[in-house]
């Protein structure tokens, strides 16, 4: 994750000019928000999120009443290759939509430049926070609640993940529309990196608690269970370092568990 603002084009610009006089109100931002949720709908190996991105900014085409060659140019511009973290994409969608309402550019930069320069850093930042930190933390917290015997474990997972996730999406649209490409500065700085570190530490701490809760619930720390689990941990750790898929290791564990069950019965 890069934390310098040098990747941000038009950093000194708000990205919203005065060409057409059109602006995005609350309804327009809400439209961008829900369309951003469909960003990955046509994900494919060639253009990746390009169709979803074009779909997200389509209301701009209607607002500007573009047709003919202008509409063709608009659509082709937004059907170019695009790929980033889907949540962080809201910063780019907001900035591009607001800029496109004014002209065919964003803060003095071409749309292609903005998308290209921001998608990489925002993708890395979003993947680190949402996929690499928040999702495991929410999953582990949900499992911990389940192991403690509460039926609302799934709700805990959903709330823990979606409150920051949806807030970040809403913030991305609002900041992108208001500040243009410079809005990305707020998620590429040291404060964001710190948030990732805190989330990862919290996830690791929760993993430790889950370990304790699981053993307490399944055998009151019987010595043979500790030895067996320790051995499996070592194998699973080695497998993970070697790049062996978790599904394969999980299947091995499940079959081993089945053998133990049959032997025990």
């Amino acid at each position, binding site marked *: 994750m890069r934390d310098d603002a040098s990747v941000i084009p038009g950093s000194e610009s708000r990205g919203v000019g005065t060409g057409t006089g059109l602006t995005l109100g609350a309804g327009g931002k809400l439209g961008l928000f829900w369309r951003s*949720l*469909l960003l*990955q*709908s*046509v994900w494919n*190996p*060639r253009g*990746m999120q390009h*169709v979803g991105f*074009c779909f997200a900014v*389509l209301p701009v085409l209607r607002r500007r009443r573009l*047709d003919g*060659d202008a*509409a*063709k140019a608009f659509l*082709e511009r937004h*059907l170019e290759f695009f790929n980033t973290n889907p949540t962080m994409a809201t910063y780019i969608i907001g900035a591009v939509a607001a800029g496109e309402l004014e002209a065919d550019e964003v803060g003095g930069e071409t749309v292609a430049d903005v998308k290209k320069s921001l998608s990489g850093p925002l993708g890395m930042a979003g993947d680190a926070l949402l*996929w*690499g930190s928040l*999702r495991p933390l929410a*999953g582990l917290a*949900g*499992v911990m609640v*389940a*192991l403690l015997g509460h*039926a609302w*474990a*799934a709700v805990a997972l959903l709330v823990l*993940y*979606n409150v920051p996730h949806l807030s970040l999406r809403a913030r991305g649209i609002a900041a992108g529309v208001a500040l243009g490409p410079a809005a990305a500065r707020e998620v590429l700085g040291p404060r964001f990196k710190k948030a990732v570190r805190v989330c990862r*530490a*919290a*996830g*690791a*701490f929760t993993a*430790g*608690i*889950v*370990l*304790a*809760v*699981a053993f307490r619930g*399944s055998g009151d720390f019987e010595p043979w*269970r500790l030895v*067996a*689990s320790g051995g*499996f*941990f070592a*194998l*699973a*750790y080695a497998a*993970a370092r070697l790049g062996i898929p*978790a*599904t394969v290791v*999980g*299947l091995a564990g*499940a079959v081993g*568990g089945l053998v133990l*069950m049959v032997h025990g*019965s």
Partner: protein
Amino acid sequence: MSDGTLVLLLALLAGALSVDGTAALQLMFSQPLVAGSLAGLVVGDPILGLTVGATLQLVWIAVLPVGAAAFPDAALAGVVGVGLAGLLSRAGAPAGWSVAAGIIVALVSGAIGQRAIAVVRRLNVRYAAYAAQRAGLGDPGGVRVAVALGIATRFVVGAILAGAILGVSFVALQALPFAPPAGTFPTALWAVPLAAAGIAAAARTKTEWLFMGAGLVFGVIVLAGR
């Protein structure tokens, strides 16, 4: 409710959750703990849903669905695992066997679903080409059609896979030439160390290892006092 109706409902649930997994929303309803809980409500056994869902959640806790990376279809696995365990329980199978069969078939389903995601993404290339063709004429309708097709395809593929795997595995397990074993399936014994190993392998700093150890000590102390 007949077994057939139950399989149909579970298939529709799997289709909807598969959409959340890759094509739209991504609100984590596709996570196995959530998918398993919802499937548990459908089969009328929420505790079973939690048990299977939490186990699968632990197995795939460190898997990152990033960019072009291949990742298991956790939503399909969650629904299939709980659905199969529920169907077997309704048929009178011992609880431990139902859970074990559900989890093993779920893990295989996750891998099958992973291949299916790749197929759907190749189909998306065609939808994107259609969108681009219409765009060349200045028509934005192609983009809307492509988005609708992308979501619909993901739903249909998820639903068909879930229905097929549930149906085939249930019939096959019912036809086994031996009596299902009794006993408790020890999920925590392997799933929790697997999750801890995944988290540990992904740990970037010693601090994260320390936090995991601190969490373990904290958990033991708190639980010992209860």
